[in-house]
């Protein structure tokens, strides 16, 4: 077991190292110099442009040797220094991200967990029942193929504009300030519904279909036939099938994290929900490279933590990993 986690952790550390390196590398080796671009847009005279250019090169530390820039980047990260945002000027990037992260957690954690549980149970329930298979399953396929942003747009349009049930922009009413009052919490909850729903529905379709297919595989395997031949109640056989089929779904959650992050990103953009996805859009539109780099790193850290959590869960639900790891090494 220690070896299992040791291996996983090693991979996560290498991933983190590579991700930080990519984060540092891409802006520096892509065609086009951001400082030059910034000055070009400011329309300065040649003389002052030169001065400002050298000032910025120094300010961003672009005039020292490459290896030193790389080292400084790492040192800054460990000091929690992600630079200063250009979009919200004197604000440090880390503070902007810290303010956004709670909204991401508020949205993503329930959406992922609820859709996973609901989807798996529903998929298991629908498997091999002719009626459900033929009616609800097609809906599952449609849902899982739907681009997150499109479902978000449709929901915002249908439930936010055509029928005024839910607000479709922001995380709370624009007239409010965050506070611990019932009014604010209510506003938060109402604004949360549509983005949650669009994330939930797409993921739900995927889990339901995955589970339905896995259950059918399990029900066709030898142990199920054997149990049935012995006269075991169908319900019990299905329960065993479910227990076996749920394991790939746990791994599937880890595999899906990247797609889910991407989906959350565009959903936040559609609903102007002030999480990291919304920050990324602002960073792109305002050419705020520091903010973009910071968001990238934060997402990587979040995904790595989630992966590790799933690894722990996997060991807990699959007894074979606990025993197998000792023998296998």
């Amino acid at each position: 077991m220690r070896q299992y986690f040791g291996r996983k952790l090693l991979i996560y550390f290498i991933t983190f190292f590579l991700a930080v390196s990519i984060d540092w590398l891409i802006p520096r080796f892509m065609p086009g110099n951001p400082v030059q671009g910034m000055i070009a847009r400011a329309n300065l005279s040649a003389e002052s442009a030169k001065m400002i250019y050298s000032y910025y090169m120094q300010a961003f530390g672009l005039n020292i040797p490459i290896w030193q820039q790389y080292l400084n980047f790492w040192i800054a990260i460990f000091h929690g220094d992600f630079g200063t945002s250009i979009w919200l000027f004197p604000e440090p990037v880390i503070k902007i991200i810290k303010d956004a992260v709670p909204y991401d957690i508020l949205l993503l954690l329930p959406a992922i967990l609820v859709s996973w549980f609901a989807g798996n149970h529903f998929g298991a329930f629908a498997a091999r029942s002719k009626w459900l298979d033929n009616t609800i399953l097609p809906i599952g396929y449609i849902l899982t193929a739907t681009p997150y942003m499109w479902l978000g747009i449709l929901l915002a349009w249908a439930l936010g504009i055509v029928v005024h049930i839910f607000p479709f922009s922001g995380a709370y009413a624009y007239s409010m300030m965050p506070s611990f009052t019932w009014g604010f919490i209510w506003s938060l909850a109402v604004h949360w519904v549509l983005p949650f729903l669009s994330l939930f529905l797409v993921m739900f379709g995927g889990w339901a279909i995955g589970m339905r297919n896995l259950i059918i595989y399990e029900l066709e395997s030898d142990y199920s036939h054997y149990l049935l031949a012995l006269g075991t109640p169908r319900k019990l056989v299905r329960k065993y099938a479910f227990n076996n089929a749920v394991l790939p779904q746990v791994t599937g959650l880890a595999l899906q994290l990247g797609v889910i992050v991407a989906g959350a990103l565009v959903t936040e953009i559609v609903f102007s929900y002030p999480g990291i996805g919304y920050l990324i859009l602002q960073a792109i539109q305002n050419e705020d490279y520091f903010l973009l780099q910071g968001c990238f790193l934060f997402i990587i850290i979040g995904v790595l933590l989630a992966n590790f959590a799933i690894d722990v869960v996997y060991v807990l639900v699959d007894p074979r990993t606990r025993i197998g790891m000792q023998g296998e090494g």
Partner: protein
Amino acid sequence: MQTVTKPKKKNELLFFALRNTKLRIGLAIILFFVVLAIVGPHLAKYKPNEFAGAQNHPPSAEYWFGTTSFGDDVFSQFASGLGAAFEVGLLGGGIGTLIGLLVGFVAGYRGGLIDEFLNMLTNIVLVIPALMVLLIIAVYLKARGVFIESIFIGCFAWPWTARAVRAQTFSLRTRDFVDMARISAMRPLKIIATEIAPNMMSYLLLVFILQFGGAILTAATLDFIGLGPTNVISLGLMMNNAVIYGALILGVWWWFVPPGIAITAIVGALYVTNVGLDEAFNPKLREM
């Protein structure tokens, strides 16, 4: 026995494939959109970014899918966006499948240190959210085309394929017929190509279909953020424009509904085809 029954087996497969409702429905939808992508641009009365006349005009005989807030013809944008989507699917999905195959075959067949290294690489790329890397790359590329976009998408979509192919290769390489080939001094590459790959053909087709759909969805997401191709109109870009220029509040639903329907229908049809093929290939799953 294999050689004698081969032609008959093929017919049997075709029989089950054509009898499968899922497969028939899926293929029909995909075929419909492929034809639309080819014929559509010729049928359209306007160019995608040409000023067609009325602004925010609802669908009518003149403007089949209506017009945008800029007076662009939605059908014309839609048709050219379909073409871009298939291009991304084919290229991005193809590259993703190819890299995945290569890594999976080599890792599974060679084993040992090479496997260890490739496995680690696969796990690392798997953990990094592909879209974030694509996003960072796209931000710094000022001019982007469908071709470049597809290549980048393919380069980050391969890990799960590599993993699956590796596992399958692993189980195949210890079979007797592979040992036989090895004893007769066949070169490793040839063993992979002639002994191992043919036994996974059906599986590879399924993998490609999933990669195809995945590439379309990734491209749509990237385009929606505004980081897609800069020189052509795509389905994701249409949705992006619709949201930015207030199609929701203006009630211009004909602007954002068609691109979403197309993506959902194509990707959904691909998934359904995938399951249909799986049932045709795998006798255990056939419903009698």
